[in-house]
């Protein structure tokens, strides 16, 4: 009972104070038959920490966690997390506090979240940013819901090349809405088919949703054109972008995105088996009152000191209830603080260096893969890839390649056949700055042995 301080003496004292005899008396308001049926057999008995710790280590050891022989991306990326970021994210004051309902005792948390909003605003070049959503995928869902709300239109355009794990979230978020989601194909570079887009965007179009880089890793070079196409019909442009890449490529603000979303995990968050992500959500100021999620604002206290507090809460569920802009309550504050710490630590120089390393590694990997017999990398040509490289194998299915690699202790990337029909021969390999040249060479040489 390491966490129950009121056993023994204290328990007796409190029961006596309440005129009760035993703990069971506290549950007399529960119908007898419900209580009787209650059985906890599926919950194991308590385990001492020393024993549990051993078991947890055993489980953890059954997972391959080192990134050096893993080339898997697909939306989450194994960037290096500096120790200082882990340190900050572990400060128990941030970890064990909750939503800062009492601003006066939560200034540190509030300031950190305000800084997060500010940092993302700079990075994205957008006017307003909320204090986090669950993850990139749900941010997409919220963005599209918001666009439908704002525009009062019913058609949404999305790329056909959208990872199913994100696409299915979008699907769920729009299930109950009276809207139509139209998918646009891709050109021979794997980018959005502009002609098709032009055709589809019309006066009923609420939003054009575009990913940059695409889920195949290519920067969407036509982003300005896409923006024009959307805006010409007064459709909103929603951009899903990679925050890291914004140190070198144009931010959503530059191409006049109305809403910009993204997955913040690369900003100093561990992969965590895909958990505790960070849904980034930014938009133009004019949509402020329609946006989902919590907002932190700067203000002063009664003595005129700078202070921070939650603001514009009337958009939120605890006030607006069924008419709220979203149902979100608990969000991913700690992830937001972590991302703020990461951005503050790296600064513009550091972030640029990450980009340089990633770009270079990606290009290098592409080149090397392309030298293998029967391998085309990138599978789509003529564009700039960031982190991810689609590689086509003439003689093999990507699934087979992956299985064979796994047996050799290497995870070479994703089998795109599981994402898109017709992509069964394409492997999506991924690299970041954690890989050294030797790691990339090793991957290539393992593949070389397989395909030769």
């Amino acid at each position, binding site marked *: 009972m*390491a966490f129950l301080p009121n056993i023994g003496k204290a328990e007796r004292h409190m029961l006596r104070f309440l005129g009760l005899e035993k703990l069971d008396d506290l549950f007399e308001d529960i119908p007898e038959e419900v209580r009787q049926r209650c059985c906890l057999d599926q919950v194991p008995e308590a385990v001492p920490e020393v024993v549990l710790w051993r078991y947890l280590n055993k489980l953890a050891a059954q997972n391959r966690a080192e990134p050096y022989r893993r080339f898997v991306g697909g939306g989450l990326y194994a960037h290096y997390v500096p120790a200082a970021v882990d340190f900050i994210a572990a400060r128990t004051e941030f970890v064990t506090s909750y939503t800062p309902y009492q601003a*006066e005792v939560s200034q540190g948390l509030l300031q950190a979240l*305000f800084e997060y909003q500010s940092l993302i605003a700079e990075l994205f070049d957008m006017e307003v940013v909320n204090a986090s959503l669950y993850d990139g995928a749900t941010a997409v869902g919220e963005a599209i819901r918001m666009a439908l709300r704002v525009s009062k239109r019913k058609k949404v355009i999305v790329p056909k090349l959208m990872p199913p794990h994100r696409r299915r979230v979008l699907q769920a978020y729009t299930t109950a809405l009276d809207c139509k989601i139209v998918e646009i194909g891709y050109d021979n570079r794997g980018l959005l088919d502009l002609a098709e887009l032009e055709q589809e965007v019309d006066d009923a179009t609420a939003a054009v949703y575009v990913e940059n880089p695409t889920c195949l890793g290519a920067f969407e070079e036509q982003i300005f054109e896409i923006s024009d196409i959307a805006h010409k019909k007064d459709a909103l442009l929603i951009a899903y972008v990679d925050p890291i890449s914004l140190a070198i490529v144009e931010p959503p603000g530059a191409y006049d995105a109305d809403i910009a979303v993204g997955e913040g995990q690369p900003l100093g968050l561990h992969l965590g088996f895909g958990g505790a992500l960070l849904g980034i959500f930014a938009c133009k100021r004019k949509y402020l009152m329609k946006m989902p999620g919590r907002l932190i604002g700067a203000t*002063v206290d009664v003595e005129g000191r700078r202070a921070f507090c939650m603001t514009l809460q009337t958009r939120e569920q605890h006030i607006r209830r069924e008419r709220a802009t979203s149902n979100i309550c608990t969000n991913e504050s700690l992830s937001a603080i972590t991302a703020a710490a990461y951005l503050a630590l790296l*600064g513009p120089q550091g972030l640029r260096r990450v980009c340089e390393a990633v770009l270079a590694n990606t290009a290098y990997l592409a080149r090397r893969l392309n030298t293998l017999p029967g391998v085309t990398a990138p599978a789509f040509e003529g564009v700039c890839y960031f982190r991810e490289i689609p590689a086509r194998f003439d003689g093999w299915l990507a699934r087979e390649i992956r299985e064979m690699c796994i047996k050799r202790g290497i995870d070479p990337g994703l089998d795109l056949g599981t994402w898109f029909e017709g992509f069964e021969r394409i492997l999506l390999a991924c690299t970041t700055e954690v890989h050294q040249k030797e790691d990339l060479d090793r991957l290539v040489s393992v593949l070389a042995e397989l395909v030769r």
Partner: protein
Amino acid sequence: MKSFQQARWEEPLLWELSLEGRSGCLPPVDERVIREVGSVEELVPDKIRRKSSLDLPELTENMVVRHFVRLSQMTFCVDTGMYPLGSCTMKYTPKAAEAAAALPGFRDIHPLQHEDTVQGALRLMYELQQILAGIAGLPGVSLQPPAGAAGEFAGCLIIRKYFEERGEVDRRTEMLIPDSAHGTNPASAAMAGFEVVVIPSGSDGLIDLEALKATVSERTAGIMLTNPNTLGLFEKNILDITRIVHEVGGLVYYDGANLNAIMGWARPGDMGVDIMHFNLHKTFGAPHGGGGPGSGPIAVSKELEEYLPVPVVAYDEERDRYYLDYNRPKSIGKVHGFFGNFPVLVKAYVYIRLMGRGGLKRAAAHAVLASNYLARRTEVLRGLKLSHAPHLLRKHEFVLTATELKAQRGVTAGDIAKRILDFGLHAPTMYFPLIVKEALMVEPTETEPLETLDSYAEVLSQIVNEAWSSPEQVKRAPYATTVRRVDEVRAARPKTRALTWRDLKRLKEKEGSI
């Protein structure tokens, strides 16, 4: 009364600490690689290369660390003091849970890496699914929803799907929700396309059975309720309620935010619940992270299992192998990009295993014990009273109303809350549930020692005395906090609103610094 003072560092914003050329971390760029592939300028087409400057602050590691350490010290948390935020179950998180989630074997794995290489993680999830099913008394579990509200949304989509499969979705448009419900309930129902129909509470704070009967119909998709409800009262007619809803063909959704009151003593499944969510960050000791991440797994009846989000973690006994089951054609799809907040799952798993069956049950009992103890010690204070049915036992939380103090002395629940902060204690939840005027919703949790409960009662007693004798003292509180009372109106007013550093700079230029 202990003298308390929160730290104050007057810490600048990051940009105010910045100086050109500083950096806290410069990742390497391999010259050998660059030489082979070319520079950024060569690789990224000019057209899309960022043109605008990137105005991130420039700091060294030491500066960044100090900044955030100072901010942390200006943040009240469970590990510094009692945090009886009603409805939030701010219990203590075992440090072993934090340590476990930080094990590289859990922390550094990719959700899309090959299943063979994450068997340990899948096993933990599988075990947790089983355990939660056991606690719920409902067989099907999805760990995916990243928070309670996301669980509600997933649940509502399942309800929708259920009726879709029956061809009733166009008819079953109404979701019944008690007026005492948390805001996420109606918001989630609305997001899933339901029309919210409010069920009024009776004077005893419980769902009015007659009103319920009068409201249900063949349009009823279901009811969303939490039990004990947000007043901390157990819906003793729960079996009638679920029966009434079932009789018209509706489903019962259980908001598990208050499960800490009854876990091990009663299972939602045994009350007639069809679907529920857990808040692992409330009931199962995962920390709240300053607002998140949380985790809101759902549990459903056999009948609803096929609609669960994909993937579900499954176990292939023959091959002794865990896997992600995506092959669920009737699934509602996904409510999170991957499998939910896995680290939170690890923490909850650790908590549950450390507590064990008996510990969970004892925890619930102690949560209820602490709540009733504190309720009885504070309801007697002049000007405060229990919101509803004062004779009834509370469960894990209780709601005081300060209407009398407000009427007599102009001291509001909010004032009292602010004054509590001066004593190194966190305030209760204020003004919720909405059906109670001047509400103070107190949830002490089982991890607060009796001595702290006593001092909470004494502090409240002192404050009430102050409110009667010198109300201004209370209305001007707090005094001992990092900043004093914060101007929320200014923050919200369009003219003075500043949501980012950019805004603040602009404002500063206009009207001097804040």
